[in-house]
């Protein structure tokens, strides 16, 4: 298959697929023979018990880890391995399980950082911050402000992120990923450590991102209630292997999944 642009793919067609991925660190086999795909416009959840290889899978998709075996196909282009910069420039952005923001910088600056790849003016102009660079910054600022409005974080626009509570940091991180106008958004446990109200807010944002911007989303989550409500399809990993794949209800009823979560008598 040749490389395609996002516009060539209609909703419900394959946006990304991973085929027979195996990843090991020395003797530890983190992922073994995992294949699944993500369709354009859907919310795809990756779930599994601790250590199942979920985050590793996400890291493979955005090129942070390089699998020993298998291929990744994104936008119709098949690769042995992805590279982080390739992933980012082709429209894959992500958030992290442990919030990874620039602590000393304000919310606004953190989110502006998400636009870096879209800035064209060279170092000289940017250093002057005059003329073309200024115009460019205004354009980008507008995009950023729209996301700030979208995520309802106007009140912390100028606050250094180190002073923010955890739930808001997560939101800022989502903002930074969103301003890159991603084709595929990877969310690593967006709701970990949140209280009920924060989870509800975050779920709302995820649904709105999916509906309003049409962004395809792959997310890792532990809260089963959230996953069942949000996801269109779910893939379940356990000890690095795929044990189930399908719609939430279907996965929930799968004996393999129940065994993986509750354990089986030996």
């Amino acid at each position, binding site marked *: 298959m040749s490389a395609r642009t996002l516009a060539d793919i209609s909703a419900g067609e394959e946006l990304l697929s991973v085929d027979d991925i195996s990843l090991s660190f020395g003797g530890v086999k983190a992922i073994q023979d995992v294949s699944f795909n993500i369709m354009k416009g859907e919310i795809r959840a990756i779930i599994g018990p601790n250590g199942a290889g979920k985050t590793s899978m996400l890291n493979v998709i955005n090129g942070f880890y390089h699998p020993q075996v298998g291929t990744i196909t994104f936008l119709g282009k098949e690769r042995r391995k992805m590279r982080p910069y390739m992933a980012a420039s082709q429209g894959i952005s992500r958030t992290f399980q442990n919030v990874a923001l620039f602590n000393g910088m304000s919310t606004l600056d953190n989110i502006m950082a998400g636009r870096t790849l879209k800035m064209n003016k060279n170092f000289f102009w940017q250093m002057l911050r005059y003329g073309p660079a200024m115009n460019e910054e205004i354009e980008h600022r507008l995009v950023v402000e729209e996301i700030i*409005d979208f995520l309802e974080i*106007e009140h912390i626009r100028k606050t250094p992120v180190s002073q923010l509570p955890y739930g808001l940091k997560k939101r800022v991180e989502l903002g930074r990923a969103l301003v890159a106008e991603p084709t595929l958004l990877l969310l690593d446990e967006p709701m970990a450590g949140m209280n009920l109200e924060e989870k509800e807010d975050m779920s709302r944002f995820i649904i709105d991102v999916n*509906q309003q911007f049409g962004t395809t989303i792959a997310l890792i989550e532990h809260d089963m209630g959230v996953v069942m409500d949000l996801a269109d399809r779910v893939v379940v990993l356990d000890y690095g292997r795929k044990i189930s794949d399908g719609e939430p209800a279907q996965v929930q009823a799968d004996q393999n999944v129940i065994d993986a979560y509750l354990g089986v008598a030996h």
Partner: protein
Amino acid sequence: MSKDKVNKVGGVKTGGDLTSFPQYLLLNAKRFANRPAMRHKDHGIWQSWTWSQMCDEIRAYSLGLEKLGLKRGDKIAIIGANRPKLYWTFSAAQALGAVPVPVYADSVAEEMAYVLEHAEVQFAVCQDQEQVDKILSNSENLPSLKKIIYDETRGLTDYDHSSMHSIDDVQELGRRMLADSTDAQKGWLKSIGEGKGDDLAVILYTSGTTGRPKGVMLRNRDCVNAAVSTVKFDGLNENDIALAYLPLAWVGDHYLSYAQGMVAGYCLACPESPDTVSQDLREIGPTFYFAPPRVFENLLTSVMLRMEDASAFKQRMFHYFLKVSERCGEDILNGKPVGLVDRILYGIGSILVYGPIRNVLGFSRVRIAYTAGEAIGPDLFSFFRSLGINLKQLYGQTEAFLYVTCQANGQVRADAVGAAAPDVDIRISDSGEVLFRSPGMFFSYFKDEEKTKETITSDGYIKTGDAGFVDVDGQLKIIDRAKDVGKLINGAMFAPKYIENKLKFFPNIKEVVAFGDGRECCGIFLNIDLAAVGNWAERNNISYASYQELASHPQVYKMMEEHVEQVNRDLAGEKMMAGSQISRFLVLHKELDADDGELTRTQKVRRNFIAERYEPLIEALYDGSTEKFVETEVIFEDGRKGNISATVQVRDVKTFPAAAMKEAAE
């Protein structure tokens, strides 16, 4: 601007024989064409509309609404926060002769449905998806509702749009009509011209302190006259600017943000979001400001808390100059003679302390500030006045279209609410109830003849339901709600709000409910202020996980006991109130909340409801027990229910012999 021009504009200000706000809109679009009418912070920048631009926007909006079927006499609900397009809806509807009905945006779906159903609204304008969802969840009870119009599109794209439109689309409709023919413009102007003084201008629902909200019907003439006379009273003009941040459905906001703004032509600024109000206030620097006492309380609390985190030098400087301002600040503001040394010290204080505080709070340019809605603590009141902020009190009601009394510059006191406002006539009934007649008074409750008759006397005065008296200098003093004033078994007068207010003046106490009518002594429920007490806890290495845990902490109880004792000591010194000192108190295990029906949407305590809900706790207050297990159902913001249970401690407090009795004993 030159002085002549101000005067000239001032001459036009009354608007002559204009009878409705859309007529004022047209006038303002002419006389203040290029002056700002509205600002709104969006994308992090203040966006502005001049009067002529705003008039264009409203015209397009209004014609769009007409195209969708809004007719003279139709009701149109407005639900949301202080956003420009929602304010435009008022004029757009009134221009067509339709009647806007603003609804409290934070009311839960059932409360909202009650108002919409009662008001028989045909159109509902919502701020966002949240409000649309609330309406849709009760749509089967709203047969008259034809169209839903919304401001923010987010999350609404997948909804059935057969009877839903965005405000932008409605305006687009209107613009196309204007482009298609010149008749549209003519028709619109004609429709505005046809607005009569007797036409219904707006229906404002009361917050429902006592039972179901009532729809207060106000005519164009009432609204315009009331606004004109108060605009004159305070000399408001087109150079003023105010920030809209109070609930849109509240008479205060409708009056100050809409009615007075239209008449005086001042600029209204809408905050970016409810969370950014304090930042926006500071950026805008309003010249005209209104806030209920609790807002001033919160401001004072935040200033004090932040000062405690300041360096030792700054703290000393702050406290020194605060003493100076306590001593002479108010006198300087009132124009009374003050010694030279104090004047110089106050001048230095202005540079070093008062000015910066005013700046941080956004009060640098405030010319006139009002507080109303509740009694304000004398200390709190003089704190702000001594900083040089011209804070005054007014007393008002939805039924009066706000103003009943207000304080003139130079006649400001903390313990009274001012003399009768211009053209207002006040009378005290034999039972001690305050009655008034005013230019803005309503003529009837919507669909409630019975209540209307109860409220308006045969000779045309309105009963306020408040007990009060007129002081020697002509200022009105309010004691309490007339029906709340009771007696203890021993015959002593019991005015719950009077006691509650005394306690609420402590920054650590957020809410108080006093009981005692027909009982042998006075007992109270307290709510601690989580911000203030939480900060104190942090400073004293007291860890807590929740409101409930902090509220039941022994040291917090001890602190509350001291406050209650202090109030008893005060009460002992007052002849009327000495008999109703507080004997027992408890700190409630949860914060009183409007979602649970314990407070009204304007944050007033609903006494009877609380008495019923917490009956076991009231028993505990009077049966001598020291603790009581209680389980309470709570409703979360999304409408789900949960339970909070706790063992609440009850404490006895020392009472003091009354000053008069003590003298007799000696």
